[in-house]
């Protein structure tokens, strides 16, 4: 007789950082990248059935091309219940190269549909030039952004009330903006919308910026796990 356990799959959630040159890998390409990493790792992951079996992997929240991240979530399923999951990050880090670093592993507590927000750190290469303007811009009662709808039309959206945990810092070379925006399946706001709106409103010189996702949060504003 087979025991039930043989067929029980163990859900495992991995958290990693994605930086540097890997920023240029789109979400779709990332899927292929991680499938290959998982394949090379020879971890006892569950493979889909069928003609072309492939390792089952899911990313909790897509990351825009060009963004870096300190909190990317990857879910896998293990077929071996006894596998010591604490070992997984090291195994994967040995394969991924310097731009990806797995730093946490656990059994998921929440379904990915319960992701509610994400926090970002946006640093502008402005020599501190835009600090005042950006502060004023963000203090407005209404901040109108243009957002493309799924149908492809442009919609005007006031996002002033949706920005949380905002903080602006100024250093010698940079202006750094911290903020949290709604994210996930219910509502998704890309920080690019805000940056574009700001640049348009100011019609000033364009400065390079870098977007770093620092956290993914649940409804209570706690780190999503």
């Amino acid at each position, binding site marked *: 007789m087979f025991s039930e356990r043989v067929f029980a799959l163990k859900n495992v959630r991995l958290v990693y950082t994605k930086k540097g*040159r*890997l920023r*240029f*890998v789109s979400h779709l*390409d990332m899927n292929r*990248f991680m499938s*290959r990493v998982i394949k090379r790792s020879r971890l006892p992951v569950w493979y889909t059935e069928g003609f072309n079996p492939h390792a089952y992997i899911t990313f909790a929240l897509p990351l825009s091309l060009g963004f870096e991240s300190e909190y990317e979530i990857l879910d896998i399923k293990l077929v071996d219940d006894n596998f010591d999951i604490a070992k997984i990050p090291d195994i994967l880090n040995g394969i991924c190269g310097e731009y990806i670093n797995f730093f946490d592993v656990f059994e998921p507590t929440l379904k990915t549909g319960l992701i509610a927000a994400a926090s970002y750190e946006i640093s502008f290469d402005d020599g501190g030039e835009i600090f005042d303007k950006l502060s004023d811009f963000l203090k407005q009662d209404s901040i109108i952004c243009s957002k493309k709808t799924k149908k492809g039309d442009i919609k005007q959206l006031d996002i002033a009330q949706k920005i949380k945990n905002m903080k602006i810092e100024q250093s010698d070379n940079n202006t750094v903006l911290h903020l949290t925006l709604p994210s996930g399946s219910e509502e998704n706001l890309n920080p690019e919308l805000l940056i574009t709106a700001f640049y348009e409103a100011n019609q000033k010189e364009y400065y*390079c910026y*870098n977007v770093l996702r620092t956290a993914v949060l649940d409804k209570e504003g706690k780190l999503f796990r």
Partner: protein
Amino acid sequence: MDEKKFEQLLLTVQKPGRYAGGEINSIIKDKEQVSVRFAFCFPDSYEVGMSHLGMKILYSLFNSKEDIWCERVFAPWPDFEKVMRDNSIPLFALESRDPIKDFDIIGFTLQYELSYSNILNMLSLAGVPLRSKDRDSLLPLVVAGGPCTCNAEPLADFVDVFFLGEGEKVDLEFIELYKEFKKNGKSKSEFLKAAAQIEGVYVPSLYDVSYNADGTVCAVTPKDDAPFPIRKRIEENLDETFYPESFVVPLIEIVHDRAVQEIFRGCIRGCRFCQAGFIYRPVREKSVETINRQAKALCLSTGYDEISLSSLSTSDYSCIEPLLNDMLDWTKEEKISLSLPSLRIDNFSEELLQKISSVRKSGLTFAPEAGTQRLRDVINKNITEEEILSSCRTAFKGGYTSVKLYFMMGLPTETDEDIKGIADLAQKIVDEFYHLENRPKGKSVNVSISVANFVPKPHTPFQFHPQITKEEMARKQQYLKDCIHTKKISFSYHENRTSFLEGVFARGDRRLGSVIEAAHKKGCKFDGWDEFFELDKWLEAFIECGIDPHFYANRERSYNEINPWDHLDYCVSKEFLISQNELAKGAITTPHCRKKCSVCGANVFGKGVCFEKR
């Protein structure tokens, strides 16, 4: 350039992953610790270049040496080229992002003639003088290898050194010598003279070419003790030849994104139009054991879930059954899919067929190349109509409903009868389907015909033939279209204008250098891509340089004429090519190397199929 600024610019172009680097298995070394930096340039897009096996082999081979750092460079897509030029970003290598003009060696691989303008464009983007004579110092040297070096002449003004034949040994010997000369502070000309003595190294500047009044080559004269002719190099024992244990795994989707296992080099067949069939002689195989070992290592190090076998004709591997048996077993276990390009399965055992059917998913394809048996005999393509029809019958019974057929047009001795034969053959396959009692129910059949333009290539028996004109090609295409009377047959063909240019360069000489440069100055690039190809600009360039392109492409060449490539010795004798061409005229076939040796000349290497027991 500042890294941040650079990465911001990347975000403004399509597919920044092409230029980002950082792929798994790409190799980073400390530039202070290496003595030679090699920029391996593929003169086409990242997606095309990264799919190329030869580049993967040499990249890994060079980097296996501690004191060489080999990096990859591809032709930037025009959108990024604009960004580079606007921001004064010189062409850089993907790994270090350092400008390649500071490298020791800039190496191009020449896979097709239509990439020549990209080579010039890449040199210009790099900020390196285009012409060899305008580069005085030892570094950077500009070198090139790959199949097109078998007539390297059109690029002779730009490239310092060509490698003939297989690169593994000659490249390393060359780099070794370079290291020594660099250390001793020697000049470029001293180095080139010495390098020319390495077998397989062709230094075009050490040969003077004179021309007759009618424009043909009068003589090629070596200087400074340079060898004559220059003989190609081969790997003698493929089981001992270096093969990469890992591939750089691209981060974006490329043309062929999978592990590739080479199983042999060369081809026993000797199809008379096929350059690869002659310049890679003789056939040398890897053992079943080597193939399995290398293939496993590759899958392990890349995480690829697909592997394909690479050779000119998989079915001709002498131990194909045992090989497939082994490979099908372990790939299934590892959940890796094995793809078997164009495999003839006629005489496989029932058991093996069973196993294959569980993995085979690619469509049914044949390459009859010509529409009538007579013309197939002319080109020495030994596949009969009955073979094709019976394979189709079997496949239809097995549930297949579409067949793809590859042909060529413009072959020597071809008549309209042969063109009509293409449509007739396709029609017979359609009929075959409807005559079958237990054909797939409720389905219709689709036969697609893909017709390429025949381009006569150097070192083949057809090197003497004129290429037919663009106009004649268009007429034949139209005629074929008119011969097709059903929607069940679909028909696609190649762009005639690009084939014409390909034909000019394939059999061109050194005087074409000025044309390539003029076309480059007019902005020609990515000529192999229909969306960028501009024949008008090329024609203007020919006129400006006072050169008639038809002289190269559309002229019959006599057997006594000295061809621009005759001093490049690929070990298939001109006498053999002539006798093959004569046989072709009489539609007489030649048996393949395993049936009978036809004494082509390739046995000088003392290895390979020439010495198998028959």
